[in-house]
Every structure is written in C-alpha cells, then in structure tokens.
C-alpha cells in the first residue's frame, strides 16, 4: 500500500512539474493588440478609404504621394502584425457569455491594420519588389484567419474585407508576373491551410446560433433573427471563387516559372 501511494505521489509530481514547465503557446491576439495600440489610423473619410481599397485590390495604381505616409507611419505596427500571423494560437478572449453585448472592438482595429497591410503590399508590387509583396499578401491571408478565429458571422465578414483583396491581388500578380517557384509554393501552402471558402462559415453560423440563444436567455425580449443562410452561402461562394481563381492563376503560371 505504501509503495503504491509513493508511486502515485511521484507520478503526480512528475505530471505537475511537466505541466508547469510546458511553454505556453504565444497568443497572437495579444501581439495584435500591441500592434493596434501603436497603429496610427489614417483618415477615415470616404475618399481616402476608397483610394486605399482600390489600391489594395489592385484596381487603382499605387499612390505614393497620397498613401505612402500612412504606410510609413505604421511600419512598426505592420511588422508586429506580420510576425504575429506566424503564430499558431490566436485567442481573442471574447466574452460570448454576454450574448449580444460581447465586445468586438478588435474587429475595427483589425480592419484598419488589414487595409494598411494590403496597401503596403501594393506599394512593394509597384516598386517591382514582387517577392516581398507576396509575403505581405500572404501575411494578410493569415491575419484574416486569425481575425475570424472562434468568431461569429461578424468576425468572418470583417476578416473577409482583408482576405478578398489579398486573394485577388495575388491572382493578378501571379498571372501577370513571373513569381519564383518558392513563392508559388508559399502561396499554395497558405491556400492549403485555409478552408475552401476562405473562412469557416458553418462554424461561425453555429456560434451565431449559440450566442443568439445566450442573448435570449439573458433577455427574453431579444427577438433578433438568425442571419440569412442564403446570404452567408452567397458570400462564402464568392470567397471560394476568389480562391479558385488564385489556384487557376498558379496552375497556369507554373509552366512559365519552370
């Protein structure tokens, strides 16, 4: 009996020690908040936002005189954000137990930082630094995955605002320029790591239903309906098409790159 007890205690001590020594996986969300704290928001007027979005989507040429300063002002935030996208763990610590009152302030900051990241990629591409531009767009794709992590529909809709321009820009650059084989592989690897529709829409809808149930439990007067599944399907199909277009560009560019 004494031997069994000793062995049990010894085993427990080893487990406890191993647990205490296990390095905690760094949380990307904390790094992102650090980047948000250092971020200098560009002007939010419609004209500037439109210019940023057109440039990020590749529908307008890069405007150094008008946008360069905002990218330069945020170099530190952008570098911090890009380093964080390489982490595997991202926990925003959302308080879903609050139901519809769950704070989601990170989405607003993430949208602005994502837009700046897209602008920086467009600037690099305009300067002919295509390999660096690809790296920045890929960081944008990884960032969108983290923004959407464990989120409801609103998180995915926000993440999509950064994801789609990156997918479209990559498709355009891959089809028009000779991207080296290493970077083509990086793009493929990143695409293989994300869901076929870019983001996990069914998971978000499931969480949406749970949050709605919590909201109704907290306040029986809440009568918000579930978001339309048809519209969600439509949006996810759009993103899936963007991914397919990028894959098609990669496939057609592959023989040229060899």
């Amino acid at each position: 009996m004494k031997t069994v007890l000793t062995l049990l205690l010894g085993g427990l001590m080893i487990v406890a020690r191993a647990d205490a020594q296990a390095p905690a996986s760094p949380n990307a969300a904390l790094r992102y908040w650090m980047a948000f704290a250092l971020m200098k928001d560009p002007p939010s007027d419609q004209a500037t936002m439109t210019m940023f979005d057109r440039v990020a989507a590749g529908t307008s040429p890069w405007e150094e005189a008008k946008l360069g300063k905002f990218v330069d002002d945020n170099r530190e935030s952008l570098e911090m954000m890009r380093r964080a996208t390489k982490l595997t763990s991202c926990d925003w610590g959302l308080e879903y137990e609050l139901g519809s009152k769950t704070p989601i302030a990170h989405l607003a900051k993430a949208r602005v930082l994502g837009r700046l990241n897209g602008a920086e990629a467009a600037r690099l591409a305009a300067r002919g630094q295509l390999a660096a531009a690809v790296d920045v767009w890929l960081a944008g794709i990884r960032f969108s995955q983290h923004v959407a992590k464990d989120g409801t529909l609103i998180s995915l809709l926000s993440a999509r605002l950064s994801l789609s321009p990156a997918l479209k820009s990559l498709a355009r650059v891959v089809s028009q320029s000779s991207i080296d084989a290493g970077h083509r592989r990086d793009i493929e690897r990143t695409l293989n790591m994300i869901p076929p529709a870019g983001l996990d829409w069914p998971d978000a809808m499931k969480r949406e239903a749970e949050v709605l149930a919590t909201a109704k439990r907290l306040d029986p007067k809440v009568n918000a309906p579930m978001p339309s599944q048809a519209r969600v399907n439509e949006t996810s199909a759009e993103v899936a098409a963007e991914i397919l277009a990028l894959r098609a560009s990669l496939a057609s560019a592959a023989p040229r790159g060899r």
Partner: protein
Amino acid sequence: MDDFENRLREFTPRRPAAIPDERLQFLRGPIWVAVAAGMAAVMLIATWIRGPRPDTRAAVAPPASITLGPMTTFALENPDQFDAVLTRMSHSLLPDVRDALSGPRPPKESQ
C-alpha cells in the same frame, strides 16, 4: 497749316467693310457662345468622370456600441457601409500610446 487740318477733318470714323469671304462670317456672332458652352460641358464631364463620385447612399446611423448584437445587425442590414463604420470606430477605440507619452497630444487623425 489750316489746309492741312481741314484735310484731316475730312476723315470720319467708319465701320470696316464686311469680310469678303463668306465662309469666315461663321466665325462671328453666337458661334463663340456655342463653342464656349461646348468646352465647358466637356470639362465638366471630364471632371465628373475623373473625380470621386459623390456618396449617394443614405446615411445610416452607426451602431451605438461596438458589441456583437448591434454590429451584426448593422453589417447584415448595411453591408455596403459596414467597412466604413468599422474604420471610423477604430479611430475612437485606442489612443496612440506614443502620443499619450509625449506631452500634449496632437490630433490622432493624420490628415
């Protein structure tokens, strides 16, 4: 001398005669008004095409708080304004820590 002055007084101002070439008559009169109006119209159209389009969307009040319920409702009902609202909300969420540490704070928005 008087003769000379008398001779000069014989000269009286007179309208010049019409330009003999009838084709050049088209260059006179209201045609210039039409040309100017045409040029102004072309310039206006060019400005409208190149410049940013006025935002014709009806302004919708943004959500009062950046929480799940109001933001989701807003995003679903106003998908075309969701992005702009997120961006504007970002301005008011966190002060720039560097500004806070360096004395009087300049306007956060770098216009």
